[in-house]
C-alpha cells in the first residue's frame, strides 16, 4: 500500500527546492507520498517544535535538523527511542556507494559521537556579498576586494561616507537566529566554543574578546547600522547597503533581488588565522524519526534521493548551498553551472576551511543563543565593554550547561 512520510524543515524559503525534489521523488517512487509540515521559521524554532512534538506524540517522519542542534536532538530523542541511527542503513548500501557519493568530512557533519544520525542535505558557509555599485563609488574595485577585517572595515567606512542614505556594512551577528556568525568569529581565529571534554565554555579568552571587539568595530568604524535581521537584508536589496555577510545559501535570492538595481559580487569570508582558522558549516541534515518499518524504509529512500546528485542539483540551484553529494557536480547534474556563475563559486573556494558547526551539550542550546545574542547586541551598541560582555557571556552560558 501507499506509504506517506511527513517531512519537516526550517526556513519557509526552502520550500522552493524541497517541494520540487519531493515531486520528482514521488514520481520516481509511486508508492510513497511525501507531505510537508508548515516550515519552522528558523532552525531553532523548528528544533523546539520537534522536541515538543516528541513529548506530545506529534513527530514528523523526516526532519531537517540544523547541524548545530543535531547533537541535542539526537541525544534527547535517542533516549526515548524516537530517532533512527542511520549507520546500518548506510552500511547496507555498501561502502562503494558511500564513497562514490559522500566525502568523509560531509558525513562527519551528520555524525554525533560516532553515530550517524543525519544525512547532510544542505551545507553552506558564511560569505561576503558586495554591492559593487557602492563599492566602486567609494573607490573600491572588484579586483581588490578586502581579504582581512581591517580593510573590510575601511571599505565599509568609505561606502558609508560616500552617500547620505547609504550604510557601509552589516555583520548581523546580534540579530542572527542562531549562533552561526558568532561561531564564525571564533573559528576564523582558530577558536572554539567548548573545551575538549565539553564541560566548559572555551571562548572566554583573547579570541572571544577580539571577536567582540571586532563586532563592535564593525559598528563604530565600518558604518554598520544596528538593524534587525530582515531589515538589513531588505536594505541590501534596496541597494542602500554596501557589504553584507550572509550564507552562501542566499546567492540565488540576492541575485534575484539585486536584479538590474546594482551589481552583486560575492567573496570569501576573511580569516585571521590562516592556519587553523575556518568557517562553520551551516545547513541541515535529514533525520528519520519514525520507528514504523514501512515509513522508515520509505524515509530512507527519500533521504538517499534528496542527498543524491539529482536532489542536490535542485537544492543547490534553488538556493546557493554547496552540494553535499560528490556526484552533483558531474556534467549530468550541475555541470558547468559554477563556471557560468562566479558568484556561486565562492562557497566552494572556501570549502577547505569549512568546519563543523557545533552545538552545546544539554537541552538549552536555543536558550543559550538567545542569552548570548543579547549580550553581543549590547556590546555592539556600546552599552557594555567587550570585556564585560565576554565575562557575562561565559558566565551565563556556563550556567545553562549541564551541571555534571
Amino acid at each position, binding site marked *: 500500500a501507499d506509504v506517506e512520510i511527513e517531512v*519537516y524543515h526550517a*526556513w*519557509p*524559503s*526552502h*520550500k*522552493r527546492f524541497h517541494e520540487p525534489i519531493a515531486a520528482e521523488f514521488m514520481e520516481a517512487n509511486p508508492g510513497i507520498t511525501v507531505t*510537508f*509540515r*508548515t*516550515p519552522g*521559521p*528558523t532552525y531553532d524554532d523548528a528544533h523546539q*517544535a520537534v522536541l515538543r*512534538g516528541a*513529548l*506530545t*506524540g*506529534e513527530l514528523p517522519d523526516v526532519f531537517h535538523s540544523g547541524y548545530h542542534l543535531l547533537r541535542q536532538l539526537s541525544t534527547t530523542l535517542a533516549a526515548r527511542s524516537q530517532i533512527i541511527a542511520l549507520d546500518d542503513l548506510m552500511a547496507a548500501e555498501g561502502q562503494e556507494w558511500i564513497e562514490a557519493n559522500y566525502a568523509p568530512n560531509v558525513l562527519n557533519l551528520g555524525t554525533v559521537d560516532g553515530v550517524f544520525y543525519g544525512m547532510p542535505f544542505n551545507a553552506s558557509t558564511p560569505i561576503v556579498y558586495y554591492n559593487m555599485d557602492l563599492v566602486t563609488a567609494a573607490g573600491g574595485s572588484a579586483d581588490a576586494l578586502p581579504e582581512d577585517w581591517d580593510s573590510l572595515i575601511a571599505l565599509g567606512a568609505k561606502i558609508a561616507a560616500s552617500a547620505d*542614505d547609504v550604510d557601509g556594512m552589516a555583520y548581523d551577528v546580534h540579530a542572527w*537566529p542562531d549562533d552561526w556568525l558568532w561561531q564564525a568569529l571564533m573559528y576564523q581565529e582558530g577558536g572554539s566554543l567548548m573545551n575538549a571534554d565539553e564541560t566548559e565554555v572555551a571562548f572566554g579568552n583573547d579570541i572571544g574578546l577580539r571577536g567582540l571587539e571586532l563586532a563592535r568595530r564593525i559598528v563604530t568604524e565600518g558604518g554598520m547600522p544596528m538593524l534587525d*535581521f*530582515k531589515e538589513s*537584508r*531588505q536594505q*541590501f*536589496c*534596496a*541597494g*542602500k547597503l554596501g557589504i553584507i555577510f*550572509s*550564507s552562501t*545559501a*542566499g546567492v*540565488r*535570492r*540576492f541575485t*534575484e*533581488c539585486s*536584479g*538590474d*538595481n546594482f551589481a552583486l559580487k560575492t567573496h570569501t569570508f576573511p580569516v585571521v588565522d590562516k592556519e587553523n582558522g575556518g568557517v562553520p558549516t551551516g545547513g541541515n541534515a535529514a533525520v528519520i524519526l519514525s520507528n514504523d518499518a514501512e515509513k522508515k524504509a520509505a524515509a530512507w529512500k527519500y533521504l538517499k534521493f534528496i542527498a543524491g546528485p539529482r536532489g542536490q542539483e535542485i537544492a543547490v540551484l534553488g538556493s546557493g548551498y554547496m552540494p553535499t553529494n560528490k556526484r552533483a557536480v558531474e556534467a549530468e547534474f550541475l555541470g558547468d553551472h559554477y563556471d557560468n556563475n562566479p558568484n556561486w563559486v565562492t562557497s566552494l573556494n572556501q570549502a577547505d576551511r569549512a568546519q563543523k558547526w557545533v552545538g552545546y551539550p544539554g537541552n538549552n542550546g536555543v536558550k543559550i543563543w538567545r542569552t548570548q545574542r543579547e549580550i553581543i547586541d549590547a556590546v555592539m551598541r556600546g552599552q557594555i565593554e567587550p570585556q564585560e560582555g565576554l565575562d557575562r557571556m561565559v558566565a551565563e552560558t556556563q550556567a545553562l550547561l549541564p551541571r555534571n
Partner: protein
Amino acid sequence: MSTTAEPSPLALTPVATLSVAGARIANAARLVAVHALLILALVFVLGPIIWMLTTSVKPANEIFQAGIDFMPRNPQPITNYSDAFASVPLLQFMMNGVIVCAGILVVQLLTSIPCAYALAKIRFRGAPVVFALVLLGLCIPIQVPALPLYLAFAQLGLLNTYLGLMLPFFLSVFAIFLFRQFFRSFPDEIIQAARVDGMSEFEIVWRVVVPSAWPAIAAFSVFSVTAHWNDLYWPLIVVSKDALATPPLGVAFFFDAETGSDFGSMMAAATLVSAPLIIAFLVAQRQFIQGITMTGLK
C-alpha cells in the same frame, strides 16, 4: 448644514455670535477643521492598508526602493498574487480560516444565546453566580488556560485537528455579556405573550428572541470572526501542518528570514487574507453598527 441630527459636543451651534452670515462662515470654518482632522487621522488609519494594496501590485525591483513612492510605476497586478498562491496554499489557509471561524461562531452562538437569555429573562437562583462567573471570565484571556489546554489536547490527540483549533473558543463570555445586555431590553411582555401562546422556553428563544436579535448577532459575529480569523497565538501552539494552518499562520510562513522576504507576494497574501474579512465587514457593517448602538455595551 445649519443644524445636525445628532447631539454632540462638536455639533455646530446653530446661531453664533455676530450675524447670521458670520455664523454661517464660522460654522463652515469649523466644519472644514473637523474634516481636516478626521482626514489626517484617516491617513494614519488607512495608510498602511493602502500601502499594502499598492505594494501588492509592485514589481520586486520597485519595492525595495527607498522613498515614499506610494503608487507603483509599473503595476503588475497578477504576478505577486500568482506567486503568493504558488508558494503557499493560501486557499487552503483561507478555507481553514472559514471552517474554524464558522465552527467557532456557530457553537458560540448556540451556547451563549440560551445562557444570555437565561441571565437576562429567566428568574432562577443560580443566575447571579453564573453572571459573576461571566464577569470573571471576561477578564481571563485564552492565554491563561492555554498551558493546561495544550497538555490536555496533547493527551486527547486534539493537536493538529480542527476541533483542537476551535474547542477553547466554543464558549465566549463576551458573547454572553453582549447578548445579555441586548436581551435585557427585549420586552418582557412579548416573552409572556409567547408563554401564553404555549411556546416552551426553548421555542421562545429561537422563535421570538433570536429573530429579533439579528443586529446583536451581527455585531458579535464581526467581533468573533475577526478575532479568530486573525488569532495567531493558539494556532501557533496547536497547529504544525499546512493542512490546518489558519490565515495568520499562513502569512507568518511567508517570513523568509534567511534571505529577506519576498515583499510583493507577501503583501499580496496579506491582502488576500484580509480581504474576506473586510468584505464581510463591509457587507455587515450596517447591522453591525446598529447592533453595537442598540446594545449600548454598557
